[in-house]
């Protein structure tokens, strides 16, 4: 790869040195324009970041409610995506994002502490990775999971060996 190219402009919103061409920034993806092309981040990417950031927190058993979890895994399998964003809703604007999460928590963790950690983790990851400002993270704790119960939903039904 060439290292002599003068393409040193970064897609930073605050650089006043390069005349940013104002192209039509349509679509729901967050977008930044530089004079050498645009950068866009799909909403699904923001949702996946939120999902992964939440799952990094100890005490989170899994994301999604009981129904959305089962449905989400089926849909995920049909669509061939290895990571589902079940239980995650995002609204992405030009510079800001809002996140809604549904999750189950491991017993006997403090639900409020887990929720607060999830909020911090989600905000930190989305802001550092996308530059979007996270205005709110709404968390719904839909279930409590007891030790040894975590993988119950994944168990086979015993019909095939």
């Amino acid at each position, binding site marked *: 790869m060439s*290292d002599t190219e003068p*393409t040193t402009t970064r897609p930073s919103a605050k650089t006043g040195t390069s005349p940013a061409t104002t192209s039509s920034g349509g679509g729901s993806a967050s977008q930044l324009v530089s004079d050498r092309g645009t950068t*866009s981040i799909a909403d699904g990417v923001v949702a*996946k*970041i939120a999902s*992964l950031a939440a799952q990094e927190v100890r005490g989170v058993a899994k994301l999604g409610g009981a129904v959305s979890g089962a449905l989400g895994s089926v849909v995920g399998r049909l669509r061939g995506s*290895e990571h589902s964003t079940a239980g995650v809703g995002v609204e992405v604007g030009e510079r800001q994002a809002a996140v809604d999460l549904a999750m189950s928590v491991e017993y006997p963790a403090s639900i409020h502490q887990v929720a607060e950690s999830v909020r911090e983790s989600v905000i930190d990851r989305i802001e550092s*990775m996308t530059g979007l400002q996270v205005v709110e993270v709404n968390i719904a704790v839909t279930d409590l999971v007891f030790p040894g119960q975590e993988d119950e939903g994944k168990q086979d039904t015993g019909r095939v060996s």
Partner: protein
Amino acid sequence: MATADASPVEVAQIAAAAAAGVPGVVGFHSGTVGEIATYGGGRRIEGIRLRPGSPPSIAAYLVVAYGQSLHDLAAAVRQAVAGALAEHAGPGFALVAVDVHIADLRAAGTQGAGP
């Protein structure tokens, strides 16, 4: 345009190779039904689309790894692709614009199929 310019599929091939070499890029995204691709010479380059013009522009639809700043990653991809095209694709691509679309994300550990 000068005759030295590469064909669309060659341009896409150069761009794909350059983008794939950037750390953090784990693959290309060809859309829900595989509609994002460049065709030519019996080949199909996924996740790359060319828009002719002067200067021409090229769009890269990427699958990226979880963790780093996506804007830094996009800047690195833009620099790598623009540099490679300016060097190898002909004089028409000296000022190519590179639109980087972060289309999907992959968690660490789940390796994606490379190009």
